[in-house]
């Protein structure tokens, strides 16, 4: 059974940044743990536009003109509709072809890596076919909730198939651990609710995953996009040398956090380097990724570090305006 | 073809009259037009009517023309609503002229009306964005200030026209409007203030744009050989020309000329047997200042790169060699969209008859006047040349 390759990948961040200092100015403190800033969607951006931007970068890096992919897996919790799949809009933006299997995964930050794993399973079951996996998210919460301070936005896309690429996918494993009171959103609600209990449900999920012993230990980098302390603890649990450092400049980008962290790790990975991608939310999912060096040009254009280091900082009122929190007439333009 | 003359014109005082009904506003123009026929005019003589309006805010979309004829005392005549955006009036006039010229109709009217001051702010903007190529220009996020702003930016780039020259059109036309009793804005505008006004759509400030205006106007035309029973001072329509162009500016070869205006002018000049030099004064379409700059080139008054200098050198001022927009134009006199083209005819007829209203506004013995009426950003244009009867 030949391994599934990541043929190309790309990340996309919105252009705007909100410095943590703006929360201190507005609210007297920033409740997120240790961020410098976060990326967030401008008025005319959303997970769909970010998904398209990430996918186009990945496809451009393949250098083959319009990519003929047969399946699209999208992991997101904040697409504009509960019903009417935005993935169809993403397909329209990428190709005129109709014969594409489209699957949307949602429900928790795990959905990004769930999309990656599901796309890999499609490729394994359909040798020679290409699948596109995209994690794109812009989680939100009411402005007066402390956990709102961490929420940002991003997307990362991976083109999977057989043949030489920048990395191969190895073992994957997942566990389920129902949560009670952390990070939930009822049907029709626009923002996340979180009761800020002292239970450590995410840490418990990582422990459960580690206990399954299905994932190889000894990865060089744990790509998870978690806050520094949680990331370090997870790395220790899973036997990885260190965790990524994406969080301080990205924030919590929901399903895209782990995916962007993986793209960041791939940017800097030497051939043979072993990565472990991890996402947590009512359970955990992990997948082994081994860098292979890859064909020329597969890392052309902006790296994740470039994106994180760029962007335009704005103030808190501008942030609220862009996030449409202050709009009384949004959508009423008949 | 039968010769056509104008025997009477009428116009309301342009401005904001939110309390005046549509029917009453139209009646005012009709009464003024009939009263303007020296030997009297029975409105029931009208056989054919062309009435221009964009849409008066949606208050009467169907059977608009018959409703207006009721107010004018002309009910029973054949009538039709003419719509070519801001050129509705000009095309209404053209249709009336052609109907009489065909020999089939003896007496016709061309009228126009617009009423928008009674709309809430948001509805105003809904209506103002309807005359571009909606599918592309509106969805790109721009109304006409933006589209004309892009044209101005390009004119400055290609021809070296300066912002001060372009805005000089507004200064001139606002000055011209001061003495015009039927103009909307009768206060002088200094160039310095105009350049410092709030930005509308860069490079335009609010001073580069016409305002929202209510108004109505009417012109009565008939066969030349019938004129004597109505007036001893008919005004002859010696040229009519019209054309269309791609509605979206991005579909045109050039963004700094209006091919529809060039074609309309060419046909009008040819019909009149004259060139641009035969025109003593003109009323042109300055919905935005750049509109008048474009007109100078499109009407053959000069080369496009000389247009800015024409303003700077005062050639088109009231006391200049070839006065343009002596009435105040759209910026000074006002722009009631559907009526504007007829309002231009109103001014030209009065000038040619020596009856211009307002102290100091009468030009000295003008022989021929030209009206240039543009729809939207140039998708449709009508040009007319009128001549004083000797």
């Amino acid at each position, binding site marked *: 059974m030949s391994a599934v390759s990541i043929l190309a990948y790309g990340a996309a961040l919105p252009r705007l940044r909100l410095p943590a200092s703006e929360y201190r100015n507005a609210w007297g403190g920033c409740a997120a743990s240790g961020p410098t800033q976060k990326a967030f969607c401008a008025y005319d951006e959303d997970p*769909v*536009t970010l998904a398209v931007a990430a996918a186009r970068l990945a496809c451009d890096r393949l250098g083959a003109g319009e990519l003929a992919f047969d399946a699209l897996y999208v992991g997101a919790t904040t697409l504009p509709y509960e019903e009417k799949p935005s993935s169809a809009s993403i397909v329209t933006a990428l190709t005129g072809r109709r014969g594409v299997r489209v699957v949307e995964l949602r429900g928790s930050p795990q959905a990004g890596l769930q999309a990656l794993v599901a796309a890999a399973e499609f490729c394994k079951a359909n040798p020679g076919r290409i699948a596109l996996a995209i994690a794109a998210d812009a989680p939100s919460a009411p402005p007066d909730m402390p956990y709102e301070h961490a929420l940002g936005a991003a997307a990362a896309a991976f083109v999977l198939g057989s043949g030489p690429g920048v990395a191969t996918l190895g073992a994957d494993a997942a566990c389920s651990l129902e949560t009670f009171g952390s990070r939930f959103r009822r049907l029709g609600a626009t923002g996340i609710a979180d009761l800020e209990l002292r239970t450590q449900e995410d840490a418990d999920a990582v422990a459960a995953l580690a206990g399954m012993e299905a994932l190889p230990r000894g990865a060089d980098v744990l790509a998870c996009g978690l806050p520094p302390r949680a990331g370090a603890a997870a790395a220790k649990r899973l036997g990885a040398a260190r965790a990524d450092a994406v969080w301080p400049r990205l924030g919590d980008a929901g399903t895209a956090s782990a995916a962007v962290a993986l793209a960041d790790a791939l940017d800097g990975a030497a051939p043979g380097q072993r990565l472990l991608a991890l996402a947590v939310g009512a359970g955990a999912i992990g997948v082994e990724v081994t860098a292979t060096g890859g064909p020329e040009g597969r890392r052309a254009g*902006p790296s994740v570090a470039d994106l994180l280091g760029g962007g335009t900082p704005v103030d808190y009122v501008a942030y609220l*305006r862009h996030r449409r929190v202050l*709009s009384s007439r*949004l959508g009423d333009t008949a | 073809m039968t010769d056509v003359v104008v025997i009477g014109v009428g116009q309301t005082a342009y401005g904001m009259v939110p309390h005046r009904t549509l029917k009453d506003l139209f009646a005012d123009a009709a009464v003024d037009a009939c009263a303007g026929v020296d030997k009297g005019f029975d409105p029931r003589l009208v056989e054919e009517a062309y009435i221009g309006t964009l849409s008066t805010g*949606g208050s009467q979309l169907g059977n608009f023309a018959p409703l207006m004829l009721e107010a004018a005392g002309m009910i029973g005549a054949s009538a039709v609503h003419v719509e070519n955006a801001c050129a509705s009036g000009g095309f209404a006039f053209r249709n009336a002229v052609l109907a009489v010229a065909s020999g089939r109709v003896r007496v016709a009217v061309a009228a126009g009306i617009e009423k928008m001051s009674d709309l809430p702010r948001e509805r105003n903007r809904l209506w103002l964005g309807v005359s571009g190529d909606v599918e592309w220009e509106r969805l790109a996020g721009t109304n006409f200030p933006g589209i004309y702003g892009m044209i101005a930016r390009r004119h400055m780039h290609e021809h070296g026209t300066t912002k001060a020259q372009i805005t000089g059109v507004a200064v001139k036309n606002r000055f011209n409007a001061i003495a015009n009793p039927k103009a909307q804005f009768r206060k002088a505008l200094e160039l310095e203030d105009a350049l410092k006004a709030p930005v*509308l759509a860069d490079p335009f400030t609010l001073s580069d744009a016409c305002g929202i205006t209510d108004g109505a106007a009417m012109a009565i035309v008939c066969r030349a050989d019938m004129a004597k029973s109505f007036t001893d001072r008919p005004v002859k329509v010696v040229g009519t020309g019209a054309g269309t162009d791609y509605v979206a500016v991005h579909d045109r070869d050039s963004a700094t000329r209006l091919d529809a205006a060039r074609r309309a002018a060419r046909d009008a000049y040819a019909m009149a047997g004259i060139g641009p030099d035969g025109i003593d004064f003109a009323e042109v379409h300055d919905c935005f200042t750049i509109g008048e700059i474009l007109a100078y080139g499109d009407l053959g008054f000069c080369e496009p790169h000389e247009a800015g200098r024409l303003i700077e050198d005062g050639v088109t001022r009231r006391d200049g060699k070839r006065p343009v927009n002596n009435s105040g134009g759209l910026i000074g006199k006002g722009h009631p969209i559907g009526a504007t083209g007829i309002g231009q005819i109103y001014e030209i007829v009065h000038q040619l008859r020596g009856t211009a209203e307002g102290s100091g506004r009468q030009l000295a013995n003008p022989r021929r006047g030209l009206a240039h009426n543009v729809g939207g950003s140039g998708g449709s244009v009508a040009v007319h040349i009128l001549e004083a009867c000797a």
Partner: protein
Amino acid sequence: MSAYFSLPMYAASSGQRLRLIAGRCRSCGRLAYPQRAACTGCGRRAFDEVGLSGRGTIFTYTIIARGGAPAEFDDQQTMTGRIACGIVELEEGPRVIAQFADWEDADLAIGKPVAAVVRRLFDQEGIVRYGAKFVPVRFTPARGQEEGR
């Protein structure tokens, strides 16, 4: 009631908008973007679809300030201020009007390079309308790469 661009019409043009699909006239080879029924060169009505790169330069532009944008963009303008629009001359030849995104004043000048991205245009009738906007092409140095890709 006002100018109203219906959902079926939007749907019909959606792929063309998002992927910049032009029509190449089968008779004279001229490119039409936006697509149209009849070729502006020869008047014929048969085209082949051609995807454009999305790269171009600014042909002309404007920055819309106070309420000069159509009502669909009113909320965007109220919330985010000035809206920049312009005509972009695409590298394959055709010109198209569009809104600019991610711009600063220094980016807007005739001749500056821009590239198409997918962005939200507006919400109406509960449906999000996406379209192409153009962003300035600024060179981001990537690790080990030359400027500009």
